[in-house]
């Protein structure tokens, strides 16, 4: 062991003479980030429309960055590689917002009503808005509230590995290997091989519990790893899940609040879909609005601090100037106003209202999704999309094409906000300069929508969308949402009741409690269980072995578990593009 440490020491010392400017934003980092991000964006757009999955890909980009910058170019630094992963994920991140919305227009045959240029403008504007809206939130959530951002923390672990010594690198790679192998073996049936490890295990059936008790657990090491990094906050999500599934469900059943034809295994699904999930969405909203109100003093401090950064001596102005935020708000407002007025033919007053409410909603939704991913790594995008569509349908006089187009702006903005916060957390942990990270994101985020929209257009021409060949599950879900809202089939009362509860919980003094409990009701127990298990293990080890053990041992393993499975999802996306895999 001592010998290998010595070798690493010597390898690092070889560059110790490199006392020039510390490499951070370099042409190599930007080109590599754009190329890798474009590759991931194309792969995940295709795979997302066929198989239904996407991924941010920051950690994989960090590993590829090391391979190319240090392995081939022999000159990469930690913060330079941070720029690689930031750019790659900025390019890739708009995919989920695009494939959730734009294909729905094709499925409904409404794409001809809108010039394709609007598709690009709406999604590119969303990508840029998501980044600008979180300028004050970076200081608030990362520096003041110190949210965990598990993916961001995992990526930082990957970035720091070459300088952290052999032991951490070994743990990271063990975690990666185990997670990748388990995922690969789980996918055997997709490859035409016999099932060895299932994707989930039904503990309820094993324990002979009544059929209506849902106790299935996804065997996902990535989700377990997320919990291992999250720790205490995740325990609240686990407790909320227990409340939802094992307290509310039996009480509701005992009180006879269910339709008579809902029996057996359908009980849990009914309660989740019609009762607890809508309540959870309401709690998320109420909790985040209360959080916003409570955080106002902190946001003011953050804004002041950003403004004061330029007055710091020693040339240490490392914050993106606040004028970028104002420019973002103005751009969002004008975009929504012009689109609603020109494309929707709404009167000026209604267009103005659409623009004002739209901007406010993008800010609140970005805040909520950033808060949620910061505390737990879960991003409630589909729930927020439902609320977005509901608001937009009302604002646009039920004009479906305009609603979906504006929905694309909102979807891309909120997924971009969450991704940017994860990247900025990584940046904080490796000592990246925030303004540099934010500038490269702003410069490159518009590339993703072009790639994703081109792939969607090509798929439409080649196979059509919404058929057996290209099921586009997310877009089909959006279509169902629109139909449900138009049919008046939306549980608004549950949203309101949940909103009140979430608001009250967030006033408790426990930061983000309303959002955490809301998330626990919104997420299926299938994923809460492995996630909660990870959190329990984290807390147990922290008490038994201390903080140092968590940082030195648990963190690298957890990061490896997350990265290994994420790498496999990319591999499967590529296999789908190559036609090797098909549902």
């Amino acid at each position, binding site marked *: 062991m001592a010998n290998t440490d010595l070798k690493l020491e010597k390898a690092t010392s070889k560059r110790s003479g490199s006392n020039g400017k510390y490499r951070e934003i370099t042409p190599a980092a930007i080109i590599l980030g754009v190329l890798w991000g474009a590759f991931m964006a194309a792969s995940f757009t295709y795979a997302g429309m066929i198989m239904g999955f996407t991924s941010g890909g920051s950690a994989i980009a960090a590993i590829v960055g090391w391979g190319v910058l240090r392995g081939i170019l022999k000159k990469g630094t930690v913060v330079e590689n941070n720029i690689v992963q930031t750019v790659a994920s900025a390019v890739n991140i708009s995919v989920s917002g695009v494939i959730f919305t734009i294909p729905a227009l094709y499925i409904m045959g409404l794409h001809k009503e809108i010039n394709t240029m609007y598709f690009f403008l709406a999604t590119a504007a969303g990508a840029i808005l998501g980044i600008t809206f979180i300028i004050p939130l970076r200081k608030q959530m990362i520096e003041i509230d110190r949210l965990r951002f598990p993916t961001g923390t995992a990526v930082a672990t990957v970035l720091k590995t070459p300088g952290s010594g052999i032991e951490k690198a070994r743990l990271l790679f063990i975690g990666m290997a185990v997670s990748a192998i388990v995922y690969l073996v789980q996918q055997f049936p997709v490859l035409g091989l016999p099932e060895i490890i299932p994707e989930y295990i039904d503990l309820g059936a094993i324990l002979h519990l009544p059929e209506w008790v849902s106790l299935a657990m996804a065997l996902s090491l990535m989700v377990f790893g997320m919990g291992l990094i999250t720790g205490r906050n995740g325990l609240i999500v686990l407790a909320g899940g227990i409340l939802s599934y094992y*307290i509310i469900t039996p009480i509701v059943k005992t009180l006879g609040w269910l339709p008579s034809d809902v029996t057996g295994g359908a009980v849990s699904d009914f309660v989740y879909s019609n009762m607890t999930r809508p309540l959870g969405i309401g709690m998320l909203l109420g909790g985040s609005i209360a959080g916003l109100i409570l955080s106002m003093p902190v946001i003011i401090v953050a804004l002041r601090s950003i403004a004061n950064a330029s007055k710091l001596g020693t040339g240490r102005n490392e914050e993106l100037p606040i004028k970028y935020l104002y420019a973002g708000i103005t751009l969002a407002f004008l975009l929504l106003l012009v689109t609603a007025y020109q494309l929707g033919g709404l009167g000026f007053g209604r267009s103005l209202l659409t623009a004002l409410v739209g901007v406010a909603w993008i800010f609140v939704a970005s805040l909520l999704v950033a808060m949620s991913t910061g505390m737990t790594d879960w991003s409630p995008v589909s729930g927020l999309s439902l609320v977005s569509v509901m608001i937009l349908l009302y604002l646009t006089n039920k004009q479906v094409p305009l609603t979906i187009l504006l929905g694309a702006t909102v979807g891309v903005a909120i997924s971009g906000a969450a991704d940017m916060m994860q990247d900025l957390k990584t940046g904080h942990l490796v000592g990246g300069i925030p303004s540099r990270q934010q500038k490269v994101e702003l410069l490159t985020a518009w590339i993703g929508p072009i790639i994703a929209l081109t792939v969607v257009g090509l798929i439409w021409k080649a196979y059509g969308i919404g058929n057996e060949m290209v099921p586009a599950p997310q877009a089909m879900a959006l279509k169902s949402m629109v139909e449900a809202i138009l049919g008046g089939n939306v549980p608004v009362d549950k949203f309101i009741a949940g909103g009140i509860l979430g608001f009250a919980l967030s006033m408790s003094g426990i930061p983000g409690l309303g959002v955490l409990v809301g998330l626990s009701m919104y997420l299926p127990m299938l994923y809460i269980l492995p996630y909660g298990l990870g959190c329990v293990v984290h807390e147990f080890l922290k008490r038994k072995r201390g903080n140092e053990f968590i940082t030195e041992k648990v963190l690298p393993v957890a990061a490896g578990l997350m990265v290994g499975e994420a790498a496999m999802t990319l591999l499967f996306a590529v296999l789908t593009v190559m036609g090797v895999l098909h549902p």
Partner: protein
Amino acid sequence: MKKLVGNVLLTAGLIGGAITAARIPPMWGGLAVSLAIMGAGIFLRRQGEKEELHRAAQSGTGGVKELDALLTDAINRIEKILDAPREEVVKELTKILEELDEFAEKAQPLRIEGLMTYGNIMSIFSRGERALNRAWSAFADGYEEEGRKYLRYGYEDLKETLSAVKALKV
């Protein structure tokens, strides 16, 4: 005790509220009662937390005195490595950064004293922590000049944080 009772009431209110709100349509009366229970719980919880923080500050086992001690220790240790060889700095900085994480966790209760104050302290502290993280990366990458520059920045920021903590009257 107040905090415990507050937590119990908050949980009871949440369970009651979630059950009554889950019904189709929600039982608004039941929800209102649950919210009242939650409100009482929140009030007691916040009171209890504030008292706890003041007790800890007086006994010196937590609160401002503990934060003061943690920061002073970190500052002294950084002072010793300002001109130390690169390998030694990386090793020591790794440990200091882990301990600073503990400072951030222990500073959380300061929120009760006012979010503006807490926000100001954490803003300066985090700037210093980020500077130290950058110093770590630069040293690990072999960029000693950048490393020393940011080590010095981090050191100065922690001293500024310590002054802000000392100025607190808890």
